[in-house]
């Protein structure tokens, strides 16, 4: 057998077309990797970095979601109202169907897609632990949901300031709305993410999330309406503990002037609303981490 290197004269200089160049640059740690994953996931949630048609739904929903705020802005500018026709916090409650569809349709992009196409095994074969992966995905969805919730508040706030309404009042109301939006986003992200992480089918995840969020809210609202009519508001207050939207409405009634049906009365019940909403979010994140730990070792 001939020696393949024998053609090279001993000690002679030759140009090697090695072709492959090793990478000698820096390698970043887990924090930087996680950050990159969060950013990519956030972009993917709006269809950026994906195919053209995957951008349609998130941006259409976002556009419709901003429409009322734009209309109010127009009215404020031309008519000059003395107060905003809709409260900052009330806005999310009014557009809850859009919000629900957005979260339900985009959670599978971040959670089901990797499971469905097996991409998860490539992530798991890389340095990030499965728990960090789960938290990064969750953060991306939280970020996207917050954009959806906070943009209208920001728009209304700008309109209010342009309309020369009282800055102190408006800032306080807007700040409360931002806090409420954060609580709602935490809960919705947790629920939608958890449902999507258990489903490899996008369609199933969308339907299941909408069922949990919107139909669940529908049932709770019906119970609250009936209990109000029948004069047993306490039953409605308890029922309100069972849906993220009704929890949001309950806290909104507590902290702002806008009131939903059967608002929680008494400090204990009001505290219960807050505790349940936070506990739901925490439980969902914990379940997500647990879920991906199971996927990793399966």
């Amino acid at each position, binding site marked *: 057998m001939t020696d393949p290197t024998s053609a090279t004269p001993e000690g002679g200089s030759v140009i090697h077309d*090695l*072709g*492959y*160049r*090793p*990478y000698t*640059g*820096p*390698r*970043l*740690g*887990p924090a*930087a*990797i996680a950050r*990159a*994953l969060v950013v*990519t996931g956030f972009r993917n949630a709006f269809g950026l*970095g*994906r*195919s053209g048609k*995957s951008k349609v739904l998130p941006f259409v929903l976002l556009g419709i979601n901003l429409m009322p705020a734009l209309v109010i802005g127009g009215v404020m500018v031309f008519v000059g109202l003395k107060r905003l026709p809709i409260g900052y916090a009330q806005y999310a409650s009014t557009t809850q169907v859009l919000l629900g569809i957005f979260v339900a349709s985009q959670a599978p992009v971040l959670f089901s*897609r*990797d499971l469905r*196409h*097996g*991409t998860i*095994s*490539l*992530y*798991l*074969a*890389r*340095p*990030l*632990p499965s728990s960090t992966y789960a938290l990064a995905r969750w953060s991306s969805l939280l970020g996207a949901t917050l954009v959806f919730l906070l943009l209208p508040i920001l728009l209304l706030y700008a309109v209010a300031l342009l309309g020369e309404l009282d800055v102190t009042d408006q800032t306080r109301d807007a700040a409360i709305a931002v806090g409420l939006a954060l609580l709602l986003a935490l809960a919705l992200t947790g629920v939608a993410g958890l449902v999507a992480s258990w489903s490899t089918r996008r369609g199933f995840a969308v339907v299941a999330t909408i069922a949990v969020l919107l139909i669940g809210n529908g049932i709770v609202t019906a119970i609250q309406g009936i209990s109000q009519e029948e004069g047993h508001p306490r039953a409605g207050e308890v029922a309100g503990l069972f849906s993220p939207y009704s929890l949001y409405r309950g806290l909104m009634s507590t902290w702002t002037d806008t009131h939903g049906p059967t608002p929680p009365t008494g400090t204990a019940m009001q505290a219960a609303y807050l505790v349940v909403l936070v506990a739901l979010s925490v439980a969902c994140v914990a379940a997500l981490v647990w879920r991906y730990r199971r996927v*990793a*070792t399966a």
Partner: protein
Amino acid sequence: MEAVVQTRGLTKDYGSVLALDALDLEIGAGTTGLVGANGAGKSTLLKILLGLVPATRGGARVLGHEIATEGPAIRAAVGYLPEHDCLPPDVSASDFVVHMAMMSGLPRVAARERAAEVLRHVGLAEERYRPMGGYSTGMKQKAKLAQALAHDPRLVLLDEPTNGLDPAARDEMLGLVQRIGRDFGIAVIVTSHLLGELERVSDHVVVLDGGRLLRASSTDEFLDATGVLLVEVLGDDAQARMAQALNRSGVATVARGTMLTVDATARASDQVDVHDLIRDTASDLGLGLVRLQVDHRHIEDVFATDGAGASSPEVSHD
């Protein structure tokens, strides 16, 4: 040089299945073929080496890192091509490989450069900018290979890279595997249940059977030293006349299909070279000698010989 992979009594017990049974293994640089039937424990071994699946007993070191405690360090330095589909259909290969390089810790700019380079090496040209959902199986396998190489790993684990490929794409993929081990200087562990293709590309072969090590040695040792020549002649009743003539000269022959096998070692002490004898015999008989070649063994033979011995533990090999 330190072993790339070293296992000590590595055992994985799934309860119903014993996937790996006290495996002691040492794998060095270059390309190593991991052979075994489906369910022999190949994929399980790769997942354990990545530190994803915990071993039931025993341990292993990969690139000097302990699998039980240093999983992240191993996964930072190892590339993995899984057996099953793993590509999102709505992302282009270019974007995907950049993303995967970043998931291994490369900064964005470096990840872009690396992605362009590895995609060129695996041979994905303009199609790299199209969503991967529209790719052929061959292109998908190339994209999977590109993401495994994106972060310049020191070891790549390729699980059935030729699965589902047509012959041309299979040859191309095997050529790539060979280049990674030889030219890129990256250690390769490649699994296959098709033994023939591993003979071509690997320097070493490890044979697993039922979670146990059947044999580990260099590919040359598997293939060489059968000491048998294959002879094929054309003419009237050629094979029988040739066999008779060779037997008269003291060379044993055995018919194999249209060919004769000649034991070349039998006349090793004789002055006459067996090759010359065969040539002269064919010439004397007026037969056309159309084939005279060394009979290479195939890795399959290992299963026929060692496999039979392994099934009855009391038999000792000589």
